[in-house]
């Protein structure tokens, strides 16, 4: 008003964050590990969206991929085995202003953390959950994980795994209140970046199943998909993951899939011959638990006490 206000003088000048602002310690994953690509993709999204590092939190459990928070120059929580999701939910519940990324592996999430997986998806709190699926327990040197394919020899199954592998995407689709399920792979950075970016833009829990190569314990596990894209089925839709048409050309098999169609999403998630990649399911209107748990945030201790007393007074016997 009247050009008299000098509020601007107290504003903090906007800072432009570069990729280096998100790069923490030197990544110590094996050379050729797919985790490097995921890390870069997340750092690029943080930069493109100009997320303040102090407003960003990476939460993980235990495993190779769970070293993720160490390599991000943001806040991080390297949690207990299988407990990445409850920690992330806790962070989001009390600090809704933070952007939460969750790094969890196939062992961490689908085995010891499976109970939390179910309920975190159901809570549908606003965060991106990246499931790094290398089909093996890598950090503890090659034990079978829930996603290890049948017949694959591991330290715990020297004659080969004898039960069918769990499919993380189709399993997640069956959980109550699921709102976002996508699948991508680490060896195609364009698709990986586009998928994670789409997940970041979704308000609710975005579950991204990332097929991730482990050059040490499961070398060649994904060769059939990496070197022969005809084994993949690219999901296309105006509401799905959008990638450069020149990159899309390398996938000979494509199918139009409306991500709001959960029935087709189920069918595509465990396609008999091909591995579907892209956005399987998306419903932005599912209930978000953040809306319920954030009531009263910012109240002082006095206000909380007053509220508590008012609540007690309703039960007072006069």
């Amino acid at each position: 008003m009247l050009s008299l206000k000098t509020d601007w003088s107290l504003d903090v000048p906007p800072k432009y964050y570069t990729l280096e602002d998100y790069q923490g310690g030197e990544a110590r994953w094996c050379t050729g590990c797919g985790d490097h690509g995921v890390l870069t993709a997340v750092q690029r999204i943080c930069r493109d969206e100009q997320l303040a590092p102090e407003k960003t939190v990476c939460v993980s459990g235990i495993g190779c991929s769970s070293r993720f928070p160490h390599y991000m120059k943001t806040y991080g929580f390297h949690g207990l085995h299988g407990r990445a999701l409850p920690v992330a939910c806790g962070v989001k519940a009390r600090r809704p202003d933070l952007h939460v990324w969750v790094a969890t592996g196939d062992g961490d999430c689908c085995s010891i953390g499976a109970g939390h997986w179910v309920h975190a998806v159901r809570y549908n709190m606003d965060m991106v959950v990246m499931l790094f699926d290398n089909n093996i327990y890598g950090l503890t040197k090659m034990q079978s994980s829930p996603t290890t394919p049948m017949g694959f020899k591991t330290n715990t199954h020297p004659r080969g795994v004898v039960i069918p592998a769990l499919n993380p995407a189709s399993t997640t689709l069956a959980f109550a209140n699921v709102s976002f399920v996508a699948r991508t792979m680490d060896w195609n950075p364009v698709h990986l970046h586009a998928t994670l970016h789409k997940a970041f833009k979704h308000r609710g829990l975005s579950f991204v199943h990332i097929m991730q190569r482990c050059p040490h314990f499961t070398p060649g596990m994904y060769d059939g998909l990496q070197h022969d894209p005809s084994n993949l089925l690219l999901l296309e839709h105006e509401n799905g993951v959008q990638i450069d048409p020149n990159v899309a050309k390398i996938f000979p098999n494509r199918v139009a899939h409306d991500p709001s169609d959960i029935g087709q999403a189920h069918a595509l998630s465990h396609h008999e011959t091909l591995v579907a990649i892209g956005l399987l399911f998306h419903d932005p209107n599912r209930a978000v638990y953040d809306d319920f748990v954030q009531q009263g945030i910012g109240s002082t201790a006095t206000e909380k006490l007053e509220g508590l007393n008012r609540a007690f007074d309703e039960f007072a016997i006069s």
Partner: protein
Amino acid sequence: MEATTDQPLTEANTPPTPTLPPDAPNDNAPADADLLRSLHAWHVSPTSDTTDHPAADTLPAALHAFRKPDDSDCPHPLLVSPESGDSGELPCLPLADWLKSRINAFAPEEGDARILKDNLVRLEQLVRVAAETPGRNAAATLLAAGQELETELGLNGADALQLHEGLARLQADCPKDGLLLPLREDTPVRLLVLALSHAARARQIALTQRVSRLAGQLRELIRVDDSKTPGKRQTGFDPAGMQGGRFNADALDKLLGPARGAVTMPPEKRKRLEQVLEILDHHLSAAPRAQATVVRSPDSPALTIPGAAEVEAGSDALCEKAIEIFDSQAADHARLFGAMRVGSLEAEGSYIPERHDALLGTFEWKSFDEGELLALPPVVAHESAEKLAGAGMAPLSRLMQSGRPIHTFVSVRPAAAPDGSDSATDPGGVRFEIGYLGVSHRETTVNQSSAARPEHFLLGVKQSLAGGRPALHVVASASQTDGGPSPLGSPVHSNAAVASRAHPLFHFNPEGGATWARRFDLDANPAPNAAWPVVELDCLDAAGAAKTLSLPFTFADFCLLEEGLRGHFRVLPAVADAHFTPLPEVLDLPPEEAAERLPFIWGIASDGAMRRLLVSRPLLQACRDRRNFWRTLQELGGADNEHVTAAVQRERDQLQAKHAAELEQLAQKAAADIEAARKDSVRGAMARLSELLLNGTPETLRATALSLANSTPIETTASEPTPETASEEVAPDAGEAAEEEAAPEPAAAYIDSHLCTSCNDCINLNSRLFVYNADKQATIGDISAGTFAQLVKAAQKCPSRCIHPGKPHNPDEPNLEKLVAQAKPYQ
């Protein structure tokens, strides 16, 4: 006043049917020339003595229906609850509305509380009479009125009990802090002060909550810092916690060391936080101050509004005094608001000492945000338009330019010209418009309203609270005329002032939007699109036949209500003449033609007899000024804007011309197409005929004749692409394929960077030959810094297969032949 607008005037107690004089306007009997000269002389100079002024009981014909005042539809008294609600908007309702809504709430069925409902009008009357003293407590007044009603009705038994219970319910529902405000001279300014104080109180409460929250955050910062500081650290373990008394917290504290790895905050930051906390705590411990201050001239009557202080100052020093009080209060708050800014910046870790230290030292009201400005105790400068129009104008203008959110309340008498003239007998020429002056300041919220329209006034007050900017409230007082009480009562009189354009209502809200149309609102006026509101008057002619007259309600009609201005009217004799012309028509005539006419309005005496009243030229000029000012407001408000009308007509003409031209072009093209098709058809037929005649057999001649007879003369189907065209369309693809086949091997090494997964394989081989780009994806750096062997090895290792070694850049490198062969799959 008009059927198409809201009707603020009340109609009740049907007065005598108006009767036209025997010389109806259609009667063409000419007036005597001497009489006309005499009337003209009086019209031009009404000071000459005459005994033909209208009698005291003569009222404007358009207001005949309101001759017997009835206040039942008047919104006053208003019921306000200054202590209730926390939205910042003053709870305010017409008493009648409140009574009806409450009774309907506890007695929704028709038969419920029947006696109370039947006697509601009487109860309202009793309350209205009792509420003549402003600021009466609503609950007490209602109690007294209820008891009086019970006494009047003298009911017994069940009926008495039912009435008593109903009254008791009303009494219980009545807000304890409720005040009754009757329609009086000072009601609007009371309403303004109450509304501002109410809003400021709500802001103060919100401010205190913010301060409390911020103080808690800062205290937590200090506590965390203490926990890192040797000597100040408290173990803080709760002995009743998980391990109960078995857990030795002190031992753990000693084992870990009190400050190992902890970084305490710099001393200057700590000091800053403590200073801020001290200021915040001081505010929390002191009682919130939101007391309004009214600055008024010494000869204005005291308002004695609860919770508001009053300061006296002369008319020429009024605004300076208001500014002085505001600045003093703002300076007090600047310390708190500055501390809050520092505290907030510290709490979010954004405080930059070299930037903020200096600036906060000069923190003043200009840096307050809107919420902070509105939390300041309101300051109201109160003066009448007559006094402010003189020496008070320049200070008022300076106040509005200063940007301080001070409210100036100006009370206006609608029939008076605030320019120092003798307003009792002079209708004024070109009037000084204080509201318009406020609009010209552009950044001031202007609320030109009327005491009789509290909903309009309060809407303006609400708008003035939004932007933290100066506000000018120009309000027509609930006038009593200069000669005493209005013959129609204050509500009708005040609304007549609005309808006659003596005091148009408008809001100018700079916060309303980017365009003028959003900032300026004129809709609350009767007939906002017309020059004057029009009243349909049913009357009888001299022969007793029913007639309906359409009577514009002009400023002259309003002036007829003013005793002091009756000298500007003269009863025309009972003859008809072409020179006698209704005043609105005279205003529309060219000046030279208007000068020949004798403008009149219709008046009606208490017995219903209608008289044409000649209007003096000074009053005619005042009417012209009112109408012209109203036209100005209309154009500003977007009603009947000449530029808009002309632009619309211009666009319409252009569109019609374009449309006609297109139609003409289409017709010409269609005619040409038909002609061309006809010629083609004839030419084709001739060619086929020639072919048949020269080469055909009798059978083909017959078949062709038959097909020609059945075919349509003109074919309009789209042509298929010819083989030549098709081959041309295919050619580029074929060329591309050929190009791809012939593409030479790349000479230089390159990387498909967008496919790189940042796995570090190549970087670890040679971090100068391979570098990351801005997206942390590999690209070729310094080619001379590496060998072709490294390029080939990197290509072999790359899990994304995005490295292409190209041709060797150093012909002297050993084993080149072997390396080239190895590189081939990756080119």
